[in-house]
């Protein structure tokens, strides 16, 4: 019977699907399990035979790691938050114009901005180092926030334009008929309704500022506002394995890696609605 044949392929398909999912979930989570484990091990323990549960768990790596990173984490936070705020201030008006206004060069302008997403940013960091030195913002938090806009602007415009475009025009017109100017209609009606998109963009911008290594490393020096990520780079830096306090390093990776993950989990629904191409 053809039905049994179909069922057999159906079952195989299902089994394969579950197999793939299980494998990938494990492949993603197990490494973190080891990291978590080693971050609770005293230095003597991770040079012995591999084991998952620490024999003598200690918080030492976490406390010293946190101590070491505290200033950098504050920098990272300021940079991330600043990047998000500046990005929203710049792109909300722009995205709104691209969604709702007619003006000369609209389509070309939009694609020029979007295609900037495809630009290899590493090509910008060298001249920006030079420019920032000339402008006096090299090695400052503000300079970093400014530099990250080049990553953030294109996708913010993209996401926000879609959000604004999908809001019914009628609602805006209703606001205008009932006494709003364009501006007050925007503030009272459009902004609240576009909140999910704005939150998504804000979080993504924060993540950009928090996660980046390249600009963070090249636009700051040891004396300046170094964010947390480049600190990790210094720690191994091609050094031999024995001199590295792996426990502390792994605690630090988790300290740096957890905030973005939490943000992602909190903002997930927003992000997913924003990501549907």
């Amino acid at each position, binding site marked *: 019977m053809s039905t049994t044949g179909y069922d057999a392929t159906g079952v195989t398909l299902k089994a394969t699907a579950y197999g793939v*999912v299980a494998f990938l979930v494990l492949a993603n989570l197990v490494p973190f399990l080891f990291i978590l484990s080693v971050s609770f091990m005293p230095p003597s323990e991770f040079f012995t035979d591999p084991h998952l549960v620490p024999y003598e768990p200690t918080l030492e790596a976490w406390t010293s790691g946190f101590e070491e990173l505290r200033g950098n984490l504050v920098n990272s936070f300021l940079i991330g938050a600043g990047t998000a705020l500046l990005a929203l201030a710049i792109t909300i008006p722009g995205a709104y114009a691209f969604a709702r206004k007619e003006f000369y060069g609209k389509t070309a302008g939009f694609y020029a901005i979007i295609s900037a997403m495809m630009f290899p940013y590493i*090509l910008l960091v060298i001249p920006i180092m030079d420019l920032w030195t000339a402008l006096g913002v090299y090695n400052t938090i503000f300079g970093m926030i400014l530099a990250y806009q080049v990553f953030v602007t294109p996708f913010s*415009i993209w996401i926000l334009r879609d959000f604004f475009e999908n809001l019914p025009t009628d609602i805006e017109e209703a606001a205008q008929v009932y006494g709003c100017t364009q501006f007050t209609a925007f503030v009272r009606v459009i902004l609240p309704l576009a909140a999910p998109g704005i939150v998504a963009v804000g979080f993504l911008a924060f993540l950009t500022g928090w996660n980046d*290594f390249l600009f963070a490393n090249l636009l700051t020096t040891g004396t300046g506002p170094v964010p947390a990520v480049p600190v990790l780079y210094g720690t191994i830096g091609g050094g031999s394995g024995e001199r590295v306090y792996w426990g502390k390093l792994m605690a630090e990776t988790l300290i740096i890696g957890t905030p973005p993950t939490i943000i992602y989990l909190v903002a997930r629904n927003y992000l997913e609605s924003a990501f549907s191409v």
Partner: protein
Amino acid sequence: MSTRRLFDIDGRTERYRSVLRENWFTYLLIMPVLLFLIVLMWLPFLQGIYMSFNEWPFGGDPTWIGAANYEFLLNWEPFYTSLKATAIFSLTTVFQLGVALAAALAVRELRRGKSFVSAAFLLSYTMPPLVIGTIWAYLLEPDFGPVFGYLTELNVLGETIYWGSSGPMSLAVVMFVTTWTFWPFMFLIISASLESIPEELYESARMYGAGPIQTFLRVTLPQLKSAILVALSIRIIWNMTKISQVLQLTNGGPGYDTSILAVLLYQFAYERGQMGVSYAIGIVLLVMTLGFVFVFIREFERASEGAGA
């Protein structure tokens, strides 16, 4: 009558003024975005091109040297090693696509737990790439890392592998970690696009007797085409220009075996302070990435046309 006319004219001028005001307002709205893109992208880019024709020490005064930076690169043996490494390394994008496509299709079959599964998948992508690179630097550490620890303990391997001293193995490790880190991005885009394929399409394919494989080739894949194209193009460029993991895992070594162009660029700028050479490498990288994107898009178009016919 005359007062009416006056009224009219007043109304008109008022109107034109407001039209003007509104257009002016529109340009005001997009001004910041354009300004930022010019100041942050085009200005540096143009300056960079100019830099590549100069001897340009960091913080120092430039000297015009024409194409000497490019000539230097062409006559410099490691540059070719780097080109080769870059070409091989770019295959990571294909691996990412493969994993992402399999994951997206598999997740679609799930009845429940989709949310947990995609959250687990995205864990590696939400963290800073350098964090992930550091984590793998530990996991794959030949002497103390758990991967080789378990492999030797379970006698899968006789002794641990010092992959850091072998060019091909280092490249493999770097590619593995890059793939592991970044496939969720493609997963995100592809599964969003997959979710948006209407159920009716699958149902009608089944009604007309298409099997699972035919359904995939004739319904799913064509619908995913643009999502895949977008994801591929973005990832090709981003993969070739993200350097933090390579730096953390191998620092470009051994020798120049894992010094993909972006790493070379970084080293010239950061370690040697030769901004001119650095940017010359950048130009080569730009040409190469654009070339790759172009070829991918063309091949993809051709392949999907073939499948559709």
